[in-house]
């Protein structure tokens, strides 16, 4: 039976690596986080018993490993610019949008093309900005938790989220949404 469990866990490795890669954007860090997740899972087999979905359970463990990994690398990284001057450039001297946002058609957001464009635009964000944004929007952490885990101030957190959102909507708009 133990062998079965190991095989089932192992079969989910590719899925977990994709998940962690999106979040960490570093193949090596993603593989490390998944490896730690699988080891933790095998050691905790008895606590899985009775739960219905192995993938959900593993993903839950992986989320914690991802946060650990980001926390570790955050200490080594130079903080990104807190200045919002670059974003203020999107507005003219009177505070109006230079290029007013257009409505995005709901139907387009369901398409594969949109998700591919979103993935591409996410990759263009500065590393920390992208991580904070994904912790918030993809993993659903509260900003207070993100600040605490990454050891950054609430203001810094807020600026990174604002920059991520502004950059993404601009990138997606330029890509194709505004042209439809």
């Amino acid at each position: 039976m133990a062998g079965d469990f190991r095989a089932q866990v192992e079969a989910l490795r590719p899925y977990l690596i994709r998940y962690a890669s999106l979040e960490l954007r570093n193949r090596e860090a993603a593989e490390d986080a998944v490896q730690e997740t699988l080891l933790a899972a095998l050691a905790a087999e008895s606590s899985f018993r009775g739960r219905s979905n192995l993938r959900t359970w593993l993903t839950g463990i992986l989320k914690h490993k991802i946060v650990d990994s980001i926390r570790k690398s955050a200490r080594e990284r130079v903080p990104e610019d807190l200045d919002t001057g670059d974003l203020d450039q999107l507005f003219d001297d009177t505070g109006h949008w230079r290029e007013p946002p257009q409505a995005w058609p709901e139907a387009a957001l369901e398409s594969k093309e949109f998700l591919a464009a979103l993935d591409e635009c996410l990759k263009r964000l500065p590393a920390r900005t992208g991580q904070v944004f994904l912790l918030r929007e993809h993993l659903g952490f509260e900003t207070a938790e993100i600040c605490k885990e990454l050891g950054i101030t609430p203001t810094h957190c807020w600026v990174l989220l604002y920059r991520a959102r502004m950059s993404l909507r601009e990138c997606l708009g330029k890509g194709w949404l505004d042209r439809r």
Partner: protein
Amino acid sequence: MKCREAAQLLSQAMDAKLPLWQRAALRLHLAICDACSNFGRQLAQLRRALGKGA
């Protein structure tokens, strides 16, 4: 309120409840500004797209 402030507040509102006076000022601005209304909807659309596990 100018669009520049409204955009920042719309982003903040995605993460925390704004003080009452800011919410009121923002609502007034959105009532007259299509661009910021579109921006606010885009933030919600991004959230939905990623929440689905993109």
